[in-house]
C-alpha cells in the first residue's frame, strides 16, 4: 500500500497514464475471454423459422449447418485470421465513428456501407498478412497471463483440487541423489535398532506353562508385599529398592503380567476370599442338614407305612377266619360247654 501511495505522489501524469493503461489491459483481457457472439449484439436478422414452409425450413437448416461447419473450420484454421472479441469490438467502434462522421458529412448511407466494408476488408487483409506470428504471440501472451506471469489479477482456482503436494518431478531429479545417500545411511543405522511386535513361536508355550506353577497363595503374597514395603522404608537402600521395584512393576504390568504389590489391595482380597469361603461353608452345612432332615422324614414315613400294612394284613386274616364260622343259627366260635365253668 505504501508503495502505491509513493507512486501516486511522485510523478503525477505518468503514473496516472500507467494506471489507466493497466486498468484498460485488465478489461481487455476480460473482454477477450468472452466469445464474440455473446458480447457483441447480433446484428443479423433472425429468421422466423416456425413461420416458414417445409422446403424453406429444410433450406434454412442446411444453410445453418453449413455455416456452423464453415465457422468451426475457420476458427481452427491457423491460416485464416481469428478475430478476437476485442478486435471485433474495435472494428465496431470504428464503424460507428465512421458512420457518425459520414452522417454529418454526407447523407448517403450506401457510400458509408461501402466505405466501412472496404475498410474492414482492408483491415482483414492486414490481419491476414500478420496471421501466424501474431497468433502465436497472442497465444503465448494468453498463456503467460493465465500463469500469472504479468502479475495480473489473481484468479482463484476454486474448481481445481490441489491434488499433489508432492514436489514436481523436475525438482525431484536434482535432490534425489543427495537424499538417496542420506537415506541409505539412515536406513543402515535404523536397521540395527528395530523392534517389532510380538511374534509367537512354539518355544514360548512351554515356558509359559512352566511359570504358572509358581503361583503363590495370597497370604504368601501379602507377606511378600509387606516385606517389600518395609524394605522401601529402610533409610539406606530404600529409595533404590523402591525405584527398581516401581520400574519393574510398571514394565511387567505393561506386558500383561499381574503384579501384586499393594498390601492394602491384597488384604482386601484376602478378606473377600475369607468371607466367600465362610459363606460357602454355611451354604454347604445348610444343604447337608436339609438333606438329612429329608432323609429322616422319609424313613420314618416308610417305616410307619410298613407297620400299618402288617397290621392290616393280620386283621384281614382274622376277619377271614371268623367269616367261615358265621353260619346261620350260630354266633361264632365255640366257647366251651356251659357246664365247664366250675
Amino acid at each position, binding site marked *: 500500500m505504501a508503495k502505491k501511495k509513493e507512486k501516486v505522489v511522485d510523478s503525477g501524469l505518468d503514473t496516472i497514464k500507467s494506471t489507466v493503461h493497466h486498468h484498460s489491459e485488465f478489461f481487455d483481457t476480460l473482454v477477450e475471454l468472452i466469445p464474440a457472439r455473446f458480447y457483441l449484439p447480433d446484428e443479423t436478422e433472425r429468421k422466423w423459422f416456425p413461420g416458414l414452409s417445409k422446403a424453406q425450413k429444410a433450406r434454412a437448416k442446411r444453410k445453418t449447418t453449413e455455416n456452423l461447419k464453415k465457422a468451426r473450420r475457420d476458427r481452427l484454421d491457423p491460416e485464416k485470421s481469428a478475430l478476437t472479441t476485442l478486435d471485433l469490438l474495435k472494428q465496431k467502434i470504428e464503424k460507428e465513428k465512421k458512420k457518425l462522421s459520414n452522417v454529418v458529412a454526407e447523407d448517403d448511407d450506401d457510400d458509408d456501407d461501402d466505405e466501412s466494408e472496404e475498410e474492414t476488408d482492408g483491415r482483414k487483409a492486414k490481419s491476414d498478412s500478420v496471421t501466424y506470428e501474431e497468433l502465436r504471440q497472442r497465444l503465448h501472451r494468453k498463456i503467460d497471463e493465465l500463469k500469472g506471469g504479468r502479475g495480473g489479477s489473481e484468479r482463484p482456482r476454486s474448481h481445481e483440487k490441489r491434488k499433489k503436494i508432492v514436489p514436481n518431478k523436475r525438482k525431484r531429479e536434482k535432490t534425489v541423489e543427495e537424499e538417496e545417500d542420506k537415506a541409505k545411511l539412515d536406513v543402515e543405522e535404523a536397521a540395527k535398532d528395530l523392534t517389532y511386535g510380538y511374534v509367537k*513361536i512354539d518355544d514360548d508355550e512351554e515356558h509359559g506353562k512352566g511359570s504358572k506353577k509358581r503361583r503363590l497363595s495370597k497370604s504368601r503374597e501379602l507377606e511378600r508385599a509387606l516385606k517389600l*514395603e518395609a524394605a522401601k522404608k529402610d533409610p539406606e*537402600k530404600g529409595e533404590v529398592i523402591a525405584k527398581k521395584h516401581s520400574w519393574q512393576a510398571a514394565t511387567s504390568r505393561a506386558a500383561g503380567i499381574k503384579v501384586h504389590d499393594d498390601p492394602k489391595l491384597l488384604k482386601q482380597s484376602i478378606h473377600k476370599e475369607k468371607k466367600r469361603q465362610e459363606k460357602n461353608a454355611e451354604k454347604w452345612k445348610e444343604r447337608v442338614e436339609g438333606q438329612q432332615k429329608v432323609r429322616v422324614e422319609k424313613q420314618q414315613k416308610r417305616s410307619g407305612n410298613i407297620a400299618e400294612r402288617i397290621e392290616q394284613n393280620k386283621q384281614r386274616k382274622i376277619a377271614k377266619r371268623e367269616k367261615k364260622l358265621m353260619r346261620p343259627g350260630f354266633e361264632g366260635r365255640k366257647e366251651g360247654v356251659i357246664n365247664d365253668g366250675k
Partner: protein
Amino acid sequence: MGRFKNNKKGRVNVKPIAMKKNNQANVDHVTGDKIPKSFVFSRTKLPASVKQLQMDLRKLMLPYTALSLKEKKRNTLRDFLNVSGPMGVTHFLMLKKTASALSLRVARTPQGPTLTFKIHQYSLASDIAQSQLRPRCPPDLFKNPPLIVLSGFGTQELHLKLATIMFQNIFPAIDINTVKLSTCQRLVLLNYNKDTKLIDFRHYSIRLQPVGVSRRLRKFVEKHEVPDLRNLQDVSDFVTKAGYGSESEGDEEGATVTLSSDIGRVNRGSTKSAVKLQEIGPRMTMQLVKVEEGLCSGGIIFDESENGDEKIAKKKQNEDSEEEEGEEGSEEEEGEEGSEEEMDEDLE
C-alpha cells in the same frame, strides 16, 4: 455379554462392537492369550479437529476397540474402569486438550502404568488422503489388527523400554504358524529421534506387487482391464513389449520379499514381491512426558521436566496399614535380599 451393575450416577453409554451377535473372544483361539482390547476416549471436551483425530485413532485400533463409544460428560474414569473389567478391555487411550498442549495418555487397566505423550503436531487421515494422488482404502483394510514396528528406541533407557513394551502389547501377537499373510495389511511405525526426543507416529497400508513383471501384464492380471491392442501386430507383442516400470521399481532391492504363499491374484508364492507402503491414517509427532505408576494416579516415576530424573512421589509412602517389622539390621537385610530374589524370579 457381561451384565454389570451400573450406578445411576455414572451411566456409561457404551456400545462396543462386542455387543453384536458374534461376540469377540476374549481369548485368542489360536495362541491362548488374552486379546488386548482398547477404549479411545477423552474426558474433556475436544475441538473438532481433535475429535477427528480421536476417530482416526479408533479406526487405527480396529478391530479390537469400540468404534462408536459414546461418553457422557458425567462419566468419570471410574465408570470406564468398571465397564472395562467384564468386557476384557486392557488399554485406555485418552486424549486431552488443554490451553497449552494436546496430550495422549496410554494406560493399561486395571492398575497399570500410564504414559503421557505430548503431541506437538498432528495430521488427520483425511488430510493425508487429500494430499495423495491415489488414496487407497481396500474394503477389508480395518478387519485385521495392524503390525507394529518401533525404531530407534533402544534397550537402554527405562522409560523408552517401557514405551516399547506398552506399544507391543496394545496389538495382539502374531502366531507365525497360523497367520495368513493376507491379513497383515496395515503397519504402525514409531520412530524415536534421540536428538530431539520426539517420537514420529505413522500409519501405513501394505501392498504387495510382484517384481519383474512388466507393468502392462500386471495391470491386466490384476484388474482384467481390456488392453489397447490397436497398434500391435500380434498378441505376442503385447506380452513381450518392454515397458518401463514406475520410477520407484528399480530403487530398493531390499524392499522385496519372497512370499511363502499366494496372495491375491497377482502375487504367487515363492516368487519375489515388492512391499509398497502407502500412508493412511493420522500422523503425529509426540514426546514422552510423564510416566505414572497407576492409572492416571500413583507415583510419577518419570518426568520429562526433571531432565529424565526419576522421582518417587510421597503418595506411595502413605498407606493405611503399615506393619513395621521390628527386626534387627542384619535380619532385615537378609529379608530384603530374599524378597528381591523372590521378586525377580517371579516377574521373569
